[in-house]
């Protein structure tokens, strides 16, 4: 049975996209930011042979890690536990938040300082903590700005990419007590530094993400420039790290190539300021570092992607954001239009596993399949192929063999099904095709002038007065 879902997510997505498209200011911000990031990345890969070799290696490491994922997760858990880190497992966002909340209550935490973590955005961590009366404070400069403005990140690496320095200057002057309006970026950063240093010193818990978890050593790796990640994982008495189950590698030597790919692809830096390897809480005799370290391993739909040979590649992602930086769609509509935690091409292919295809399939259709994302992906995820697969899934007959995902068939409507059923009948039978095309060419005056999305910005499609077979017949005679 095909079904028509009551709220059409496409409407929201299209509405948000249109609103950005009609805003020259925002479009200029995004264009400028994308040009900047593309040029920076390009400058980091001057040698094509080296770049392609490293991408092959990066992809091989990620594919190997995924192929051995259950074994590596158990190895990681065993080694972290031996190092004194407490490992927790969560199937859903709610379970992950409950684990964090349980830890927070046990240590009587009133405030949590957060390093940059997209998984914490994915599980709506801040809301869950605030609902329980615990303050969750963002400390990455971009995240801090976005939180202060009551917004969400619009990019996974540069959360406040949609804002100009004028907007941030105004925000700080209005929201930070005792601050005068300044557009000087150094001054603005020093204002943030001042506010947040106090927060680091006072917070009961630090929360962070994980860039790579190393199974053989039981190590959590964090990549950053600001030092807030180090603050969050070192100053408070308790450190909670949260990560998707896929962010794992077997060996420490697997990290250098991925780290190089990540920093060069993400922000066009040969290296970030800090690479932080955490292998346990404070040991006896050590004078600082957290007394407790926890790791929450989150599924939230990732095992669905894992189960499928083609979609498993989605989990190779190292979250560099290069796909969005090079996406002609993202560059025009920005991150918020997507309405998902992860925007851009990676968002279009990972979100269906987290939220269901029924509410995310429009993202798979919002692509020209130009292939730029796959060309720049440091771990060679075939994003366009996966987009096409998700389109097919969205149109699949639910509960059939072709429908394998949560929400498969959600885009299938009675009207679509009728049109394609007629089409396949006509194109499958020569007699019927001849008859239909004869009527079409003769009845072209009756072609509708309103042809849905097609005629919104184009002239209507009208069949040719003569069919190809008529033209060929004319030529022969």
């Amino acid at each position, binding site marked *: 049975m095909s079904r028509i879902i009551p709220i059409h997510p496409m409407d929201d997505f299209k509405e948000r996209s249109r609103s950005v498209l009609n805003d020259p200011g925002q479009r200029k911000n995004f264009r400028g930011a994308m040009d900047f990031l593309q040029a920076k990345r390009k400058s980091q890969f001057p040698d094509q042979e080296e770049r392609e070799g490293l991408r092959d290696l990066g992809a091989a490491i990620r594919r190997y890690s995924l192929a051995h994922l259950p074994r590596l997760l158990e190895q990681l858990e065993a080694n972290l536990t031996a190092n004194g880190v407490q490992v927790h497992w969560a199937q859903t966002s709610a379970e992950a938040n409950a684990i964090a909340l349980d830890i927070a209550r046990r240590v009587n935490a009133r405030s949590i300082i957060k390093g940059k973590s997209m998984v914490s955005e994915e599980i709506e961590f801040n809301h869950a903590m605030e609902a329980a009366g615990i303050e969750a404070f963002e400390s990455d400069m971009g995240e801090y700005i976005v939180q202060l403005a009551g917004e969400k990140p619009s990019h996974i690496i540069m959360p406040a*990419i949609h804002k100009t320095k004028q907007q941030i200057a105004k925000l700080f002057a209005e929201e930070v007590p005792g601050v005068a309006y300044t557009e000087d970026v150094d001054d603005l950063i020093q204002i943030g530094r001042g506010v947040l240093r106090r927060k680091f010193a006072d917070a009961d818990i630090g929360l962070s993400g994980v860039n790579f978890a190393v199974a053989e050593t039981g190590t959590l790796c964090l990549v950053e420039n600001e030092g807030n990640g180090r603050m969050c994982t070192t100053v408070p008495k308790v450190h909670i790290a949260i990560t998707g189950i896929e962010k794992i590698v077997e060996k420490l030597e697997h990290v250098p190539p991925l780290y190089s790919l990540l920093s060069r692809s993400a922000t066009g830096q040969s290296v970030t300021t800090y690479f932080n390897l955490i292998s346990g809480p404070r040991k006896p005799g050590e004078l600082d570092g957290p007394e407790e370290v926890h790791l929450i391993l989150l599924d939230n739909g990732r095992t669905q992607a894992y189960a499928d040979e083609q979609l498993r590649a989605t989990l190779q992602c190292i979250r560099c954001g290069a796909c969005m930086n090079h996406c002609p769609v993202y560059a025009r509509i920005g991150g918020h239009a997507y309405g998902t935690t992860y925007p851009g091409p990676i968002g279009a292919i990972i979100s269906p596993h987290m939220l269901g295809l029924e509410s995310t399939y429009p993202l798979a259709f919002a692509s020209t399949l130009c292939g730029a994302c796959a060309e720049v992906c440091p771990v060679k995820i075939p994003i366009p192929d996966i987009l096409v697969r998700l389109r097919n899934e969205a149109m699949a007959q639910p509960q059939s063999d072709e429908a394998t995902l949560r929400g498969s068939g959600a885009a299938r409507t009675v009207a679509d099904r009728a049109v394609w059923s007629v089409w396949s009948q006509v194109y499958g039978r020569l007699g019927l095709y001849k008859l239909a095309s004869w009527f079409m060419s003769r009845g072209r005056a009756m072609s509708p002038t309103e042809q849905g999305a097609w005629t919104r910005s184009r002239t209507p499609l009208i069949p040719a007065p003569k069919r190809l077979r008529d033209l060929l017949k004319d030529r022969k005679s």
Partner: protein
Amino acid sequence: MSAVLDTSASARESILGRLRSTTIADAPALPDVKGWFDAHRRHEDLPQRISRLRTAMEAVKTEFHNVTDADWPEVLLRVAATKGIRNLLIGTNTAHGAVLEARHPKGLQLVPYAQPIDTWRDQLFDSIDASLTSARSAVAEIGSVIVWPTPSEPRLMSLVPHIHFVLLDASTIHSDLHSAISAEGWSGNLPTNALLIGGPSKTADIQQTLAYGAHGPKELIVLLRHTTEATS
């Protein structure tokens, strides 16, 4: 508490169960990471490695001073005086800390990191200007010093003070991260926290404009110690 523990345990079984039930067709072989680095490594002598390290780190505002075993305290004190540094956080039971303390420098208060952070957190955040730590080694290719915090030189020394001096022996500079990890045998003996530091803390989160001194040190000063007399 126990309810959450139970949920975590059953989540573990479900997640691992789902992953194990997936058959992986043609699972890839263990990637030859060493082979790739061996083929792409630059074979440089020490001066070339030093030069590459400096170029990379100076490009992100790191300050370098060539020093010897004899003159590094003098260089440090001179730089500290120029920058108006009033106090310097040093480790306990370190050779370099002892050398500095023995000089009883005038105008620069030496503050040993001798107590657990919990007892003096506010003082560290609010009134320490600078710190001195040693570096374990460095990596030329990615322009980073390697710092392994110890009970003598804890983690926050290289993070909280506004200026971080790091004493690096030039002879310890590796070509790339892979050779550092394998030569130093990291996978068998990582400390609770190991760090690569490429420069002072920075951000470009406001309109892609680079600004230094985000949350960590605003300045990173490398005292590059040469075994022979060096020209500064």
